[in-house]
């Protein structure tokens, strides 16, 4: 195996972890919740006890990961070769051979947007799992609730347990009458068929969304996940994601592996991991990570930061370098609005400054005519002061200078129609938004509100590539 192959393996493995396609190497700070969820599912499978629970927590704290990890472990324990819980396709062929001890139904509130669709999906997933009693073919299922219910209610404790995972649980609660939730919880409570209903949501008040009859059937078990509270935990999670494991590089202890290949792979892994460790000791890098931690404690924010540097791994630079992270840290951090505004024309910038002045005078909603008037006032003043010519020439217009300075082309009062186009461009970029909903009457008079902060506008003026001093001075002036 050449270095190139190793790098590409490492790249694939790490980016799969970053994209959350593969599970992290270790759980950090979630051991408690994990044990409980795992225990709950295991009891359903082993003893046929029905259960329901909710996993609550902010986004990116590992709720879904927890469930996936638990399912993976259960699959391993109960004996079938399990790759990815979504990957039913793979299991299809050996379904007849290997007896499955339990079935999993995945639903997501974003995808199954009403109960009917959810029911259809349940049917599909159950029949896919190859459950013989469930019927001979897909079509034998009428997509109605009663048939599923009779099927579920006809069961005994000896039946195969089914684990329902309801991702984005809060969205299911918004379905009419919550009939799906009601029925699932009802089956769970009446202990007819061993099922476990596990809801996953980021809404802390998800329980309040449930109707009374639904709520009373719910077991009221909830587990909370929290973002890593400790900076060290956060660092650990990040480090685990980037560190390579033997499996990542397909290092096996098999006899299949040729000796030299094995050795290079191990050496590469060691070197790579060593570099990661030094990376985390790097001052600048820690500053970047610390900043993310202080801002949002979101692991995904760090993941986003990593995608770029990981994608850059190649034969030439097989290891992650701290400098890459500085750059990508900056890239993810910039205010995109300012970035977008840097590319605006001088006319648009002038209009924004005029808007800023209007807002400072407490004219919160304004229309194009007012902005243009303000802009015109400034231009008139600039002409009166006679600073126009001097500013234009002092700034220098390069080779086209003669035209620009003699006519003052660089800073000129634009006709209303041209200015209106520029104004509309700002609206299109959604830097301005209509203050009222109806849009009758001439568009010049339509009231608008600005979606930028005064400080953002001043910031842009400072950062703008070619903003004449006189405009900058106008922007800095107050009132």
């Amino acid at each position, binding site marked *: 195996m050449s270095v190139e*192959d190793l790098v*590409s393996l490492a*790249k*694939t493995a790490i*980016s799969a972890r*970053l994209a*959350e*396609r*593969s599970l992290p190497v270790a759980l950090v700070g979630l051991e408690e919740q994990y044990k409980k969820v795992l225990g709950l599912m295991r009891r359903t499978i082993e003893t046929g006890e029905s259960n329901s629970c909710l996993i609550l927590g902010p986004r990116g704290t590992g709720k879904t990961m927890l469930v996936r990890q638990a399912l*993976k472990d259960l699959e391993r324990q109960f004996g079938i070769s399990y*790759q990815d819980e979504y990957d039913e*396709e*793979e299991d299809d062929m050996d379904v007849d051979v290997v007896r499955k001890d339990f079935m999993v139904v995945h639903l997501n509130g*974003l*995808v*199954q*947007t009403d109960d009917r*669709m959810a029911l259809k*999906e349940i049917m599909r997933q159950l029949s896919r799992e190859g459950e013989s009693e469930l019927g001979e073919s897909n079509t034998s299922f009428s997509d109605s609730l009663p048939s599923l219910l009779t099927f579920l209610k006809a069961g005994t404790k000896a039946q195969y347990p089914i684990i329902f995972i309801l991702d984005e649980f809060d969205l299911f609660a918004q379905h009419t009458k919550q009939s799906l939730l009601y029925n699932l919880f009802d089956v769970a409570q009446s202990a007819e068929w061993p099922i476990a209903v596990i809801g996953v949501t*980021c809404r802390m008040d998800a329980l309040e969304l449930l109707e009374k009859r639904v709520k009373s059937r719910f077991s009221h078990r909830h587990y909370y996940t929290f973002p890593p509270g400790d900076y060290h935990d956060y660092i650990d999670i990040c480090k685990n994601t980037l560190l390579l494991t033997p499996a*990542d590089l*397909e290092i096996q202890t098999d006899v299949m592996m040729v000796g030299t290949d094995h050795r290079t792979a191990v050496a590469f892994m060691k070197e790579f991991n060593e570099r990661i460790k030094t990376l985390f000791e790097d001052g600048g890098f820690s500053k970047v990570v610390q900043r993310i931690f202080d801002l949002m404690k979101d692991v995904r*924010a760090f993941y986003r930061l990593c995608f*770029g540097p990981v*994608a850059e791994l*190649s*034969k030439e630079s097989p290891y992650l370098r701290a400098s890459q992270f500085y750059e990508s840290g900056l*890239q*993810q951090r*910039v205010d*995109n*609005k300012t*970035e*977008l505004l840097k*590319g*605006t*024309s001088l006319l648009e910038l002038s209009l924004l400054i005029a808007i800023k002045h*209007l807002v400072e*005078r407490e*004219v919160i909603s*304004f229309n194009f*005519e*007012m902005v243009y*008037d*303000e802009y015109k006032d400034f231009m008139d003043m600039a002409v009166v002061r006679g600073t126009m010519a001097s500013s234009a020439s002092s700034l220098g217009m390069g*080779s*086209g*200078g003669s*035209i620009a300075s003699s*006519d003052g*082309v660089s800073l000129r009062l*634009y*006709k209303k129609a*041209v200015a209106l*186009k520029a104004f509309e461009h700002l609206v299109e*970029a959604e830097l301005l938004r209509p203050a009222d909903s109806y849009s009758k*009457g*001439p568009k010049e008079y339509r009231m608008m509100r600005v979606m930028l902060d005064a400080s953002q506008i001043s910031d842009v003026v400072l950062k703008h*590539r*070619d903003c004449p001093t006189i405009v900058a001075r106008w922007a800095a002036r107050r009132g």
Partner: protein
Amino acid sequence: MATSPRQLLHEAFPGRAKQIDQILGFMGKPWASTPPSLLINGNSSLGKTAVVKATLSAVLGGGSSSSSSSSDSISSQIRSEQHLQDRRRRLPSRYAFLDCVECHTPRLIFEHAIYQFRNPPPSQDKGSKAFSSTHTTTTGTSDNKAAATVSRKRKRVATSPLDWNKCENVNEFVEWCRKICDTKDELDEVHETHDNHRPVSGSISKHQNETRYLVLDRAERLRDTAPTLIPVLMRLQELTGRNICVILITTIVWEKFRSKTGGYEPIVLNFPQYTKSETVAILGRDLPEGEEENMDLYMRFVDLVYDVFQRNCKDLNEIRHLVALLFPLYIKPVKEGKIQKHEGLKLHRHIQAYFVEAMDKLYLREISSTEWSDRTLSVASGSLSGVSGSTIGGGAGGHVSGAPGGDRALTTALDVQNVFDLPYYTKFILIASFLASYNPPRLDMRYFAKVSSTGSKMTKRSKVAAAKKHGHDSMGSKLRQQLLGPKPFPIERMLAIFYSILDEEVEENVNVHTQIASLVSLRMLQRVTPMDKLDSIKCKCNVSYEMIKTLAKSTRFEIDKYLYDFS
């Protein structure tokens, strides 16, 4: 095997090397896992769409005759890779490219995406087109699109690809995505035979197919389709459990996409503004046909245009439009032998007047490029002396008198406001409604009350003066009626003003009302009370000050005397 797709792309898109490398880096090898979603963000006409399209088609086949998908991959496999590339052209596409303006409902998005995924990528000519014209203008894009749809239709007949599939909701789409990603085709088999060490990592299934890319152009429109669509697309990879990457292309920032409950955040890639050298390099490719010998002149001109316009016009398409419009004018004296090529200053002076004018018409596109070129041609062929000096009006007159008559083309063909004519009384109705819309009712007595005939003129003037003075005091405020726009007024008030400003008597009241009705139907007056309400009708005047001024001039009515707080 001299050029890799990466180099080709770099050549095709000056100033976008970094972005291309980033995208290529994220894509990695055909089967490598990618970030779940990318957001490509930048102002208009910065090559976002073109770069993404060209990159995907270069790497994933369906176009460029360039070499392999994995430029950095094992070089000994190049021949087979090329073979692969040939096969790939007949295989289902690895990417779907959708425009959210075209696909404005979730269903259209799903079905188009499925169709594109299940059929071979669009044929070669389109891919090469993407290469040759790096920046399709706004009009160009629609042309392309039309061509694409035509070719798609033709293809459907010719090679009878798979049928159009129905897909009505997200659930079905997710199911389709799984199906699409799981379709094994010969290509995958080729891969399998080639790579005995395909990546197997962690819990990822050992059989991993090539990444599919779903590109959504003008993604800002997505927000109007369905509330849950964006969160779904952002985590399509997680939902399907397959290797699929969603790329959104948009001009607005990500913050505007966030939904209430939050969701997976994409990686943001920003396309920055072009620098001067990059812009000039891009413009340099637009050298008109048959002007090859004037290359240096053209480049000089491009330089000049950039310097003059760059501050106020960042839109590359607009600059291209300007260059295309103005270059024939610039080069005309040279062709006619009046000015030598090297006399830069003279040429400069000659074109200057056009620049001033073009500045005034920036972005307006009052006439199309073809119309423009037709006109310049006709002027060039006709006699020049007769037309010259036919002015454009405004301050530019001084320069223009020296310039040949081609400049007229830059002005509007027909000024609607000047040509539009109304009956005499109707004009007064319109003027009266304008006054009623912009003057405060409390001042009506001052302006329009018919006091005894003797002193009327005097008092009126003094009152007007007083009003003017009062107006100047409040100039600082931006809440003048002129700026706030027209206010609704009762018809009776307008009629009172109408009779007041009209010197003669009008007998036929009925006709006046028909005129009002016809003005409403012309949308010059806007009725604000509902149609079923017959009495106490209120209207708004929908006409600009400029137009009223020309109307007033044509009736010799001094409107400025009667307007309060106008400037």
